[in-house]
């Protein structure tokens, strides 16, 4: 027994000695990002740590979460109270969903820290984003994450192959005058010109549905297949929609019926690739076909400047993005990329100082986002960023990091890009129900059941593969049986309470 006691005391002594030794060094703060493609961050972190040593008083470590593994890693770290992760990416669509995790006490409330250290941050980020991040969390109403300034508005566009459109004898203006229900003649001509194996209508079926019916995503709805919808006033997005501020079952509306009827007609005529109607192949088919430019009209959830990205420039055709509505700010988009501080963190103050600096200091943001000048990029004669081959080993997800408006312009984007970007999104109007998040905790069982039913029908219906005449009634009946009304009522009661 004495031996054991001696051992414990010796260990305790050793640990204290160690913590004293550590106290003299700067503390390490760790941040976990989403969607990165980083294999070598040595040079970047060295430069970052030199830069922030005095300003933040800590050393930075980064966990580069990839698209596929972030959700598991982030939720594990948060749920287990891992002290090794100080800051973590969060948003309205990741597994560590902002509203839920803030409510359950995993994120530090930042209001006091902002008041003390956040003057630069407040100056750098629009007021509306601060508002969008203000929610009812574990410690009351407040801000629980630093909201990144990125493409904070949603805008769905037609992705038009102008090269082919001109070949068919139409101009872009002709196209702009058409609606979804008039596309038939275009498709038919394209099909005659390019042959049977050509599918002119390259869509993301779920996005197409939103574009045609004017429905928008309700934050907190079933993630895999949205069931609920608010309807947008397509002429003025900030005004009340045609149905008022009421949430509807999106599959039961007349607009939806008209949409799927038309889509089925297009599908039967061979205008839509059948693999778009299958969940496993839908996205692959779309992105692969986009690359080759073998389509006439597509759908694209648009971000300002997308036409300058290599993704579009490499298609070998002239592409135009024709908007369906003005960009609108909804809850999903305005909580699209944020970074929160974990309540398990031992260094919340240093972490916050770092986040404030990252979002307001162009040097740090550029370093962490674009890499080191001379290694990952060079500045050309016009002062624009040109990436080197090293960029392949260091490509974090730009929008997931924070304030992208303080980055320098790249050669591909052209000078003045960031300024226009800021203007574009500063001008975006908010929908009336901005900030509303459906808390589905009470109807979680219904949501799971409804999600399963919708997964069975929605994509294939939206893509036109199923005949609405026979399948839509079955679908609606199955939704009713799975508790659609209770789900709707819960959502509407909360919306009414939110809007007051």
């Amino acid at each position: 027994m004495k031996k054991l006691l001696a051992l414990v005391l010796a260990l305790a002594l050793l640990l204290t000695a160690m913590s004293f030794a550590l106290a003299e060094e700067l503390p390490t703060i760790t941040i976990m990002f989403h969607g990165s493609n980083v294999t070598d961050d040595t040079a970047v972190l060295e430069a970052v740590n030199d830069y922030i040593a005095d300003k933040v008083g800590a050393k930075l470590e980064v966990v580069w979460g990839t698209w596929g593994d972030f959700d598991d890693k982030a939720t594990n770290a948060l749920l287990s109270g891992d002290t090794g992760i100080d800051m973590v990416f969060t948003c309205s669509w990741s597994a560590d969903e902002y509203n839920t995790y803030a409510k359950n006490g995993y994120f530090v409330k930042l209001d006091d820290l902002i008041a003390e250290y956040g003057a630069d941050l407040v100056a750098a980020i629009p007021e509306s984003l601060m508002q969008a991040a203000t929610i009812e969390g574990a410690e009351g109403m407040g801000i629980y994450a630093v909201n990144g300034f990125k493409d904070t508005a949603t805008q769905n566009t037609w992705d038009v192959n102008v090269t082919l459109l001109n070949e068919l004898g139409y101009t872009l203006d002709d196209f702009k005058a058409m609606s979804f229900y008039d596309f038939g003649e275009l498709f038919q001509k394209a099909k005659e010109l390019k042959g049977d194996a050509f599918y002119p209508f390259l869509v993301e079926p779920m996005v197409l549905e939103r574009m045609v019916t004017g429905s928008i995503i309700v934050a907190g709805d079933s993630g895999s297949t949205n069931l609920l919808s608010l309807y947008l006033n397509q002429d003025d997005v900030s005004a009340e929609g045609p149905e008022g501020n009421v949430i509807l079952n999106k599959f039961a509306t007349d607009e939806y019926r008209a949409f799927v009827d038309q889509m089925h007609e297009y599908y039967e005529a061979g205008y839509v690739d059948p693999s778009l109607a299958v969940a496993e192949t839908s996205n692959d088919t779309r992105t692969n076909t986009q690359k080759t430019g073998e389509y006439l009209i597509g759908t694209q959830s648009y971000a300002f400047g997308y036409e300058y990205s290599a993704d579009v420039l490499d298609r070998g055709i002239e592409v135009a993005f024709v908007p369906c509505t003005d960009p609108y700010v909804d809850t999903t988009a305005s909580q699209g990329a944020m970074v929160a501080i974990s309540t398990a963190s031992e260094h919340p103050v240093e972490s916050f100082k770092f986040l404030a600096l990252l979002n307001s200091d162009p040097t740090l943001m550029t370093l962490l986002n674009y890499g080191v000048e001379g290694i990952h990029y060079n500045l050309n004669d016009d002062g624009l960023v040109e990436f080197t081959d090293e960029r392949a080993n260091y490509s974090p997800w730009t929008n997931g990091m924070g304030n992208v408006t303080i980055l320098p312009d790249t050669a591909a984007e052209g000078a003045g890009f960031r300024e226009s970007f800021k203007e574009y999104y500063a001008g975006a109007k908010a929908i009336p129900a901005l900030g509303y998040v459906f808390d589905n905790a009470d109807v979680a069982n219904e949501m799971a059941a409804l999600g399963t039913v919708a997964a069975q029908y929605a994509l294939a219906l939206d893509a036109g593969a199923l005949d609405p005449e026979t399948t839509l009634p079955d679908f609606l009946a199955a939704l009713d049986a799975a508790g659609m009304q209770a789900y709707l009522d819960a959502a509407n009661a909360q919306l009414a309470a939110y809007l007051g």
Partner: protein
Amino acid sequence: MNKPQRNQVALNTFGPGAQALFHTVLGLFALMCIVPFLFVIIISFTSEDSIRQIGYSFMPLSWSTQAYGYVFRLGDALWRSYFNSFLITVIGTVLSVAICVLYSYPLYRKDFKYRGFFNFMSFFTMIFGGGLVPTFVVCKTLLGLSDNYAALIVPLLFSPFNVIVMRTFFQTTVPRELIEASTIDGAGEYRTLLQIVLPVVKPGIATIALLNALAFWNEWFLSLLYITKNMDVIPLQYLLMRMQRNADFLAKNSAMLGADAAQAARNLPSQSLKMALVVFIVVPIACAYPFFQRYVVAGLTVGSVKG
């Protein structure tokens, strides 16, 4: 005189009709096992253009070794993870077999006092698990299994299922008289186990070793959980799985991510590259089968003629 007549079938064989039927059924079954693998090989040599135009096909429009070229250019990351896969599998298999034998042998010995207790301890974990997060906490913060090889080996070292298989194997193949005899002849416990019992249970050990080797070789979830910063220790399976999960995630969330998803999709490997990696993963472990097979077959038939 019992002269065998024409058409009379020996007692221990089947008639020609039944033989043909069995051969057909088993042949078809074997085909079902091998065809997917052949398909994977064909796809790995298919050109991207062909996949884009006609999808996966046994008869692609054009062939290409581009995917393998890319795999070899992955360079360090690939060979490193390939080496890790071997390292983890070899160390893990040796250790886990040793632990399994050393745990199940006492459970088989009737004269072991705490047999019931240890039996229960291992059996209990088969029925009740701790759940993901508690396991994660214990492994990471208590045991320090994070960003190192140990994190990829230790959690899989002990398998109650294998212990039960091995214990049963001891019970059915090692007669107690054997142990009594060796005790009488003056062998200590270790000599009894290592020199007398082990040679008898070789087929059982081979079975366990095969199961464990497969488990370690195919493991990727542990890397997902415990490897966050030190990517030098990840196995090949995880490299592949990560690509797959990235593609799945982007497909699922493309509507939320919009243009970002489309741009990120550009960094994803092509279909043929994925299949080329599958070939890299499958070939070594497929080569391990013949070595184990001898014992596994012996394990199935041993004891079958005894009363």
